């Protein structure tokens, strides 16, 4: 019975999904549609369950397949918070009609359930199933752009690539099972460590799992789908897709690397050692460097706002992977910090881009001139969100970058540290370019905007939009102001990976 309690958040999420389906089926054109509110209530109930699970402490269930530790609780909470915010972006979307919002919510909640399961997975098969649940649901959401060829292309590209890389992951799982007779992460690790498995096979398993996970995290060279999918999907879906795939990829990477391919160091709770039979960090360092550098240089050459944000997120994936590579407590805590900042910053960025798209009908940077004039507050918010995302000092994301680059220096990875610094610098230039395009003719000479965007703004500058932006802004501001206590909490959560 106690083991079933561990599944309470997922249970509430499933109940919420059922509630949405029943509600939408029973909808007969009433004036008020209560789906959004009921979903928020369901998600809040699931969040309460996650908090209540904290009292059990670090434990496992279902023969060790399901783990409940600090990281699991943190990620479950983050996933649910993500879903709550996505409902907000959905309410203001013009791209997705109210009629289709119910469907959207069902898929978003399914992906959230997948993320929640993934947070507790201690088994390669369970990780595979959870990842597929996330990627399939998100791919459905990506195709929600009515009548948009780009949206359909985004959905198909994401679906097909997700399936192909999923096969790599599955094949790696099968090989690991064949060699060790287990799919549980800790048991595979024990088998690898005992020396009974050939190092070549360990390397192949690592490569296959890495390919499977790199797709989700948009690591170079598996990043090509990312900007396309974000560009084609409707804005609420872009935000959800960008955040959920990052969460899923980072979480799976952390679990697999710390449980299978890493060993606790002598100073427990400080850092890991790599598996003696196979040094996977050298090839990974190359991918980290390439991801860190490819994202910013892609970003600076993008012509559309969504693609630009997507490219920035690719470079952020490099930072997340840097945390996994460096493998110490501070770096992993910083990775989680970065994910939290990324959640609000990416959702906020896509939300503002959604508003700009609604006004201008496109997100072409060259044609966004004067949007700053029409939407000063929203444009500044967009710049703030992006600066927070890439960690320009003194924005909140900077503390995460500082910790990650510092940890790289601490472990003697100076080249990666230099790549990280270059990434932040070039990313900031890409944001500058975006700002120039937004600013357009905001001149001191009193010239008026060329387009008719000012007339449009009065229709959209509602209290609700500002309130929602404020709700996205506040967590970032608080994370910046109280980065120390937040880091402490994340370190405690990360420490649970050591059984601490």
């Amino acid at each position, binding site marked *: 019975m106690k083991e079933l309690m561990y599944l309470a958040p997922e249970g509430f999420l499933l109940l919420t999904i059922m509630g949405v389906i029943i509600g939408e089926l029973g909808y007969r054109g009433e004036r008020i549609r209560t789906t959004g509110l009921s979903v928020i209530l369901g998600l809040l109930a699931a969040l309460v369950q996650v908090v209540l699970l904290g009292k059990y402490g670090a434990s496992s269930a279902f023969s060790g397949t399901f783990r409940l530790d600090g990281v699991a609780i943190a990620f479950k909470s983050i996933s649910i918070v993500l879903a709550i915010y996505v409902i907000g972006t959905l309410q203001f979307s013009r791209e997705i009609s109210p009629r289709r919002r119910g469907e959207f919510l069902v898929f978003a909640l399914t992906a959230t359930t997948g993320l929640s399961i993934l947070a507790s997975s201690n088994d390669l098969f369970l990780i595979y199933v959870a990842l597929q649940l996330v990627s399939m649901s998100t791919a459905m959401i990506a195709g929600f752009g009515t009548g948009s060829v780009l949206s359909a292309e985004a959905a198909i590209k994401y679906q097909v690539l997700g399936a192909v890389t999923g096969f790599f992951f599955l094949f790696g799982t099968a090989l690991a099972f064949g060699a060790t007779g287990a799919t549980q992460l800790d048991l595979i690790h024990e088998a690898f460590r005992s020396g009974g498995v050939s190092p070549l096979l360990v390397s192949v398993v690592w490569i296959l799992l890495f390919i499977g996970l790199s797709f989700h995290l948009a690591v170079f060279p598996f990043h090509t789908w990312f900007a396309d999918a974000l560009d084609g999907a409707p804005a609420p879906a872009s935000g959800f897709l960008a955040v959920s795939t990052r969460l899923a990829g980072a979480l799976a990477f952390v679990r697999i690397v710390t449980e299978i391919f890493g060993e606790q160091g002598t100073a427990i709770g400080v850092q890991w050692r790599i598996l003696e039979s196979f040094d996977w960090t050298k090839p990974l360092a190359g991918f980290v460097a390439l991801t860190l550098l490819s994202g910013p240089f892609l970003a600076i050459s993008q012509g559309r706002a969504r693609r630009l944000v997507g490219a920035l997120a690719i470079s952020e994936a490099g930072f997340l992977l840097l945390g996994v590579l460096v493998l110490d407590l501070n770096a992993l805590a910083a990775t989680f910090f970065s994910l939290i900042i990324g959640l609000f910053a990416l959702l906020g960025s896509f939300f503002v881009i959604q508003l700009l798209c609604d006004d201008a009908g496109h997100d072409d940077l060259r044609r966004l001139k004067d949007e700053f004039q029409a939407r000063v507050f929203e444009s500044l918010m967009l710049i703030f969100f992006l600066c927070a995302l890439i960690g320009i*000092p003194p924005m909140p994301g900077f503390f995460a970058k500082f910790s990650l680059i510092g940890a790289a220096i601490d472990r003697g990875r100076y080249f990666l540290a*230099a790549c990280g610094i270059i990434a*932040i610098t070039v990313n900031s230039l890409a944001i500058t370019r975006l700002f120039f395009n937004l600013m357009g003719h905001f001149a*001191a000479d009193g010239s008026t905007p060329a387009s008719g965007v000012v007339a449009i703004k009065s229709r959209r500058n509602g209290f609700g939009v500002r309130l929602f932006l404020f709700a996205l802004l506040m967590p970032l501001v608080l994370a910046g102001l109280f980065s120390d206590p937040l880091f402490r909490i994340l370190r405690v959560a990360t420490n649970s990976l050591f059984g601490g």
Partner: protein
Amino acid sequence: MNNSLISLMLLLPFAGAVLQAASTFPSRRGRGSDRTENDPERDLFRWVAFASSFSSAICGLILLFQMKAGAADPQHIETFSWVGAYSISYALAIDGMSAPVVLLISIVFPILVAAEWLRPRGRQGIHGLLLLVQSSLIGAVCAQDLFLLFFFWSLSAFPIYFLIGIWGGDGREVAAFRSFVSSSMGNALFFGAMLLVYYSSEPRSFLIADLAGRVPPSWGFELLGIKVAVTELSFFLMAMGLVFRAPIWPFHGWFIRSAYQAPASVLVAIVVMGIPVSSLIFMRLSLMLFPQVFSAAATGVVAVGVVNIVMGGLCALAQRELRPLLGYLGLGQLGMLLLGVASPDPAGLVGVVYQQLVSGLALTGLGLLIGIIVERANLDSFGDIKGAEKVTRLGGLAHQAPAAALVAAVACASLLGVPGLGGFISQSLLMIGGYAVNPWAVFVAVVAMIFTAITLLGMYRHAFLGELTPATQSFSDLFSRERLFLIPLVFALVLFGVYPKPMVDLIRPTVAKLMKGGSP
């Protein structure tokens, strides 16, 4: 015991900036930028901007007057832990070295706010961003924690980018972009230096006083087969980081372009950030964190300074427009500072600190005056440009505007080191300090200064003396408001020229202690 007045000095402009930002929100009377010129709410916000800047300046002056002369240690300390996990502290203080720059910021920024009093469009924005620059520069100058210093120093780059990009001239986009590219590169290199210093010190700390001497000179690593000492690499990264944020030849392109495009008040803010503040940070960190490396690199630093003086002087000689001329004068002034920074004689360092104050004041006066001239005459060329008509240049301004001519004369004279003005004291000390070790450098600098003298005197002759041109026929003299904010600058330049003792007494103990190898 913590002195909260120093935090108040830092936070008041920030609070003012937040209030200016709040004014852009829609109210019952409409969005801030939509309101008319005579709207009392707009009037209120400019008074709020001035009050926050001025009250911060008052806090700064109170702190300076309360400083104990003869004390080398930092005073008015306020410190508490900020990010405990990384030993990052919020630690602010003023010592003899930072006091003159605090005074400079306190004098200059309320004046800049006043100079933008009548801007017809986006006034709240420009006031808010100038206040943010004031706050961040105070933070960078007073920070006793390396992380806090970097925090404020990098923060100062953002408002400048917006200030040029929004309120600049026709080429503002390129100027702002180049300025931001340069400052981003500078910040990135500085960040790298900071991380290296932090992670190579044991026990780890960001407090500058704690870091002094804590990085073992022998500590290093291999990069591509070459043995690299951390102190050398950190010093190089820190110095290059500041080079990109200061007008140093050949990385000065962004500065000159900003001088062309930025409004006068913004140009002055850039000058204060790029010359006195950046040189102070360089001096403080070099002497405290890398004394041995700095001593070894002293000749190189002097050489960079001399090149800056020579190139600044030669380029200024070729200018026929006021704004780029001011930019190249800035190059020369920074070169002078570098000449003294590397001097092992305390007189040289005292001269540097004094020069930071007086050259900042003189360039502010000249910069604001150029802004007024450009605004009224709608041109800034003072010399005969080949092929151009006489109508396109300034001339005989002293007939029409004697008060403006007086301000320009005092500022130029101070920059040239005329006795009785602040520049004379600082440049004399610099030369005395520099001559002891690098007489050749002083000789070259003096020769190069002759170019600057020819340029400034030529500019004054063409623009202020001589005959009136069609462009200056209807030029009006300084208004009362303009006199009100330019007079304090002239007064300060004269005061620091005739009575330097209090300031020199404040600077000397800190500098002397620093040169003996102890942190102040």
